[in-house]
């Protein structure tokens, strides 16, 4: 009799723990990736973030939105963060320190799923942005000769719910984006 209640207690506890674990999985999830700042990795970056998002059952529309925003931010890091100007300064810097081996510049992505909100943080350690307001202006581009449209930040703003840009010349740029995912299912429930 005594052992039976103990057993029941144990099963009860395990179930609670399991439920807690499941709840935890759904409420908080984190990942971080780091890759070389080359254009071929843009496809990898947006696909990785989109895959990370799948537990939230996003709609195709939401996946597309997130992919576009991530693609914009990573493209910015690759072509603006680490451009020729950066390499000129970077080479001088490494020569000063006597480093012979040059490591390739990297782009970093940190994603957090908090409930049904996706937080994406994308940063580089490149040359930084001197005038953020001007850079975020639609159709403004510092590289018109390269066929850039100047719509990068405008797209990030349009496809995500929240956008914040932090930058310091010489130290790199961080882009913080937020998006509520699975809103459509929530609306269905409301009705």
């Amino acid at each position, binding site marked *: 009799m005594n052992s039976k209640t103990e057993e029941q207690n144990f099963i009860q506890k395990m179930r609670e723990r399991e439920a807690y674990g499941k709840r935890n999985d759904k409420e908080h999830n984190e990942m971080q990736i780091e890759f070389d700042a080359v*254009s*071929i990795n*843009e*496809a990898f970056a*947006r696909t990785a973030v989109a895959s990370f998002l799948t537990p939230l059952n996003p709609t195709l*529309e939401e996946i*597309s939105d997130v*992919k*576009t925003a991530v*693609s*914009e931010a990573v*493209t910015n890091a*690759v*072509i603006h963060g680490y451009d020729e100007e950066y390499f000129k300064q970077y080479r001088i810097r490494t020569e000063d320190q006597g480093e012979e081996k040059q490591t390739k510049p990297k782009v970093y992505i940190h994603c957090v799923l908090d409930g049904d909100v996706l937080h994406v943080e994308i940063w580089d350690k490149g040359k930084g942005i001197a005038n953020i307001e001007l850079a975020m202006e639609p159709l403004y581009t510092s590289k018109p000769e390269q*066929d*850039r*449209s*100047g*719509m*990068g930040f*405008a*797209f990030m703003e*349009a496809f995500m719910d929240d956008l914040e840009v932090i930058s310091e010349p010489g130290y790199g740029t961080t882009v913080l984006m937020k998006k509520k995912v699975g809103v459509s299912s929530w609306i269905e429930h409301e009705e």
Partner: protein
Amino acid sequence: MEIGFNDFKVIENYLMVKMPEEIDHHKSQAISRIADDFILQERIGNIVFDFEDTVFMDSSGIGIIMGRYKKITFFGGKVYTINTSPRIKRTLMISGLHKIIEIME
């Protein structure tokens, strides 16, 4: 899949560009370069972008169209997009390109 000359076709004085499945900065450079070669060498009048296979496009795609628009209107030509899915259409609308090019579904 890499961009090749097979994706470009000249019909009368129209240049047809078959856009790839995913258009980003990595792919856009090749498309722009080859399209420019055609514009200058084949004396084409108008350019048509075919989005039949395209499932993803970011602002680099807008860059391709804008750059070609500047060149082709210099010779008095027009830019068209065909097989434009609602998704691509939305991207074109956000950037305001629908005001200067002809979008066909």
